[in-house]
C-alpha cells in the first residue's frame, strides 16, 4: 500500500492566507487527520490543527474537505481517488485563528443565552422518575458532540454574517428541543425559540442533518417539531384565551 496524495492545505491567519500544495504519503486505512499529522511531523511542524480523540467523539477536528464541512478524523482517504487533489480549509462560517483552526466562540456565547434545565422544586435528588420512551427523544439530541459542522453549513449564518446576532443555529435548536422535550423541565422553551433564537429563520433545507457526524435528525426530530409547537401555541385560540386571562400556563 501507500501512495502520495496531493493535498492543498489552507495556511494563514485572520488577515491573510493561501492554499499550500503538499505531496503526503498515505497508509492503509488512514483518514485525512492522519495525513495532516504526517505533514506536521515532517514538512510543516507549526501547521495549526485542533484535534483531540481521533475517534469522532470529541468534535474538535471540524474543517471543510473539498468544501464539505467534515470531521477530519472520520473522513477516510479511500473515499478519494489516489490522483484526486484534496483541499482542506478551516470552517468558513467562523473567523480563522490560524491555518485550520477557527474561532468557534460564537457558539459558546449562544449557549449562554439559553436558560439551563430547571427541575421541579418539589423533587429531591434521587426522586426523579422518567420513562425510557420519554427520555429517548432528548437523548438523541444529547448525542451532539459540538463539532459545530451544522452551524458552519447553515446558510442562514454562513452566507449572512448579519444574522448571527438573532439566529442561534441548528446546534442550539436541538438544545432547545432537548429541554422542551425533557419530561421534567419546568420552563416553556417555545416562545424563546421563536422570538429570541430565530427558529423562524430556518427554512428547513436539512443541510445541518446532512453533515451531522452523529446522524442526529436535526431538522425532522428537533426543528420541525419545535416549529409545530410554536405554531400550536401561537395560533391556538384556547391557549391564546388562557394566556390572555392569565390563569394557566400554555402547554
Amino acid at each position, binding site marked *: 500500500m501507500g501512495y502520495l496524495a496531493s493535498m492543498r492545505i489552507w495556511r494563514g*491567519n485572520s488577515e491573510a492566507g493561501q492554499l499550500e500544495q503538499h505531496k503526503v504519503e498515505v*497508509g*492503509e*486505512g*488512514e*483518514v485525512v487527520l*492522519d495525513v495532516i499529522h504526517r505533514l*506536521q*511531523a515532517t514538512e510543516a*511542524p*507549526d*501547521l*495549526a*490543527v*485542533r*484535534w*483531540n*480523540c*481521533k*475517534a*469522532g*467523539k*470529541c468534535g474538535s477536528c471540524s474543517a471543510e474537505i473539498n468544501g464539505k464541512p467534515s470531521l477530519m478524523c*472520520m473522513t*477516510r482517504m479511500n473515499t478519494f481517488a489516489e490522483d484526486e487533489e484534496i483541499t482542506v480549509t478551516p470552517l468558513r462560517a467562523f473567523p480563522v*485563528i*490560524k*491555518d485550520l*483552526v477557527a*474561532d468557534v466562540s460564537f457558539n*459558546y456565547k449562544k*449557549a*449562554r443565552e439559553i*436558560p*439551563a*434545565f430547571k*427541575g421541579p422544586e418539589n423533587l429531591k*435528588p*434521587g426522586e*426523579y*422518575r*422518567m*420513562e*425510557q420512551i420519554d*427520555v429517548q427523544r*432528548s*437523548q438523541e439530541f*444529547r*448525542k*451532539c*458532540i459540538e463539532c459545530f459542522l451544522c452551524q458552519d453549513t447553515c446558510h442562514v449564518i454562513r452566507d449572512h454574517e448579519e444574522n448571527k446576532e438573532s439566529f442561534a443555529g441548528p446546534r442550539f435548536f436541538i438544545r432547545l428541543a432537548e*429541554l422542551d422535550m*425533557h419530561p421534567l*423541565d419546568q420552563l416553556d422553551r417555545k416562545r424563546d425559540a421563536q422570538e429570541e433564537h430565530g427558529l423562524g429563520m430556518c427554512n428547513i433545507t436539512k443541510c445541518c442533518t446532512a453533515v451531522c457526524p452523529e*446522524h442526529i435528525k436535526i431538522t425532522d426530530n428537533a426543528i420541525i417539531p419545535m416549529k409545530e409547537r410554536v405554531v400550536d401555541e401561537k395560533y391556538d385560540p384556547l391557549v391564546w384565551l388562557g394566556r390572555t386571562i392569565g390563569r394557566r400556563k400554555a402547554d
Partner: protein
Amino acid sequence: MRGGKFQNNWRMAELHAKESPDRVWELETYGALFDRTPEGKISQRNFGGHEYPRLAHVGDRTGLELIRTMQQKIVSLQQEDFAETGDYESKIKVFAELTITEILKTDGKVSGALGYWRESGEFVVFEAPAVVLATGGIGKSFKVTSNSWEGTGDGHALALKAGGNLMHMEFIQFHPTGMVWPLSVKGILVTESVRGDGGVLRNSDGKRFMFDYIPPVFVKQYADTEEEADRWYTDPDNNRRPPELLPRDEVARAINSEVKAGRGSPHGGVFLDVSTRLAPEVIKARLPSMWHQFKELADVDITKQAMEVGPTCHYVMGGVQVEPDTGAATGVPGLFAAGEVAGGMHGSNRLGGNSLSDLLVFGRRAGVGASEYVTALGSKPKLAQAEIDRALASALAPFKGDSKENAYAVHYELQQMMNDLVGIIRVGAEMKEAIEKLETMKERAKHVSVSGDTKFNPGWHIALDLMNMLLVSEAVAKSAMEREESRGGHTRDDFPTMDPKWRAIHVITSWDGSKVSTKRESLPPMPKELAGLFDVEELKKYLLPEELAQLGMGGN
C-alpha cells in the same frame, strides 16, 4: 478493593462507594438523562469485576453525558451570576485551550500558576493560593493508547516539579479491547459495554478462551462453562458471571497470551463478537456509538462481523499522592488533585465505570478541600516575580534550542520504547534499558528547537509536552523496576506472581530537579469494619498472617 488487589487506599474506596449515588443523582438535577428502568428509575448495568449491576449509564456514551452535563452546569451557574451581577464571568471564568506550564510557589506554598493560550500564544499568570489538578492521564507516552493528545501527564509532571510525590506509577491499565486495525485507529477504545451486553472473546480457533484464564482468586465469582456464563445475562442471581467480565488486567493479559501463542486474529488481536449473540436492532440500540465507529473507521459491520481487538494503554492508576478526604497533595500546601491525575483510589487496577464516579466524588472533594484551605489561609501568598521570570524562560526555551532535534521524532521514539520495554509484560533487564534510554532522550529533548512563533504552534506545544512525558515515563519505569512482583496493572515476567509482602507497600516517586527517585511507604491498614465486609478466606489470599492477626482474623 478486590479489583485493585487490595492495593487501594481503603479510605478513598470507602468514600467513593458511599458518595457516588449522591453525585449521580445530583447530575440528574443538572439535566443529565440516564437510561431508565421500567419503574422510571436510573437503569444500572455491570462492567468487569462488579459484584452488583451498579453503573448508571447512557447507552455507550456515559462519559459524553457527564462532560455535557458539567459543561451545561457551569453555563447555568454563569447565568445565575449574570442575573446577579450583569457579568457572566464575575465568578467563574473558563480558560479554554490554555496550558499550564508551572505551578508557582512562594515560601513553600502555592501562590499561582503560569500558562499560555494555545490560540494566541500569550502567557497568563494566575494569582491563586490553591490549584486543583484535573489533567487526566499519561497514555501519550505509549505507542498504542486510547488517550487523546492531552494525555501527556502534564498534571503528574507539574506536581513532581512543584515538590509533590507520585504513587503507584507502575500500575498502568492496558484496556483489553482497543481497535487493532486499520493502523491509523490502533488503540482507539472499544467500550467495555460490548462485553457487558453479551459480547464474547474468541481466538482464531473460534474458542472462547477466557475460560482458561480465570485466576484462583476469582474462581468463586466466575462461571467455568459457557452454559452457565450465558445464563448469567438473564439470571445473574443464580449463575456466576462470564469470564469475559473479569477485571481488565486479567482480560488484557489473556489476549496478549493468545496472540503470542499464535491464536490471534489477522491483524494481531482477538475476536470480540456480538453479531452471533444479539439481534442487529438490539446491537444498534445498545451500542450505537460502537456500531458507527467500526462502520466508519474500519468498514466492519458489528451486527454481522466480529471486531478485532487488542490491549491498549488506557489509564494510569498511579498519580499524585493526596490526602483522601480533601485531595490535598502531600508536601505541597495549596496543591490539590482529583481524578486520573490523583493516585490511590484504584489500587493496582481500576474497574470499568469507576473513573467517571471517581471524578464526581473526588472532584467535588478536591474543590471543597481547596476552598476550605483558602478560607483557613488568611493572607494570600504573594507571587514572586523571579519565579514568574524563571517559569517564562523555561516555557520559551524550545525557541532557543541549539540543534535540529525534532520533538515529534523524540516523542515517537519514546512511545515505541515505552510500549516495548515498559509495556503490558515487563522484565528487569528491559526496564533497566528503558531507564538508560530515557537519560539519553532527556538530553536530546534539551536541544529540541522550534520554528515559528508562539501563536497556535503545535511544534512548540509538543516540545513542552515532551518534557512532561519524559519525566512521567521516568517515574513509571523506575516504579516498575522497584516493585518485584506482579499485581493488577503491573506484570513482570521475572516476578510472575503476586507477593503478599508487597501488598501493603506502595512505591513513591519524587523529583530533585534532574532525576526521579523512588522510595517505599506502607499503606495505612484497613479498619476492622471494612475488612469485615470480606470473607476471611478471600483476605487470606492477599494479606500476610500478621495483618490478619491485627484485624482479629488470624488463626483458622
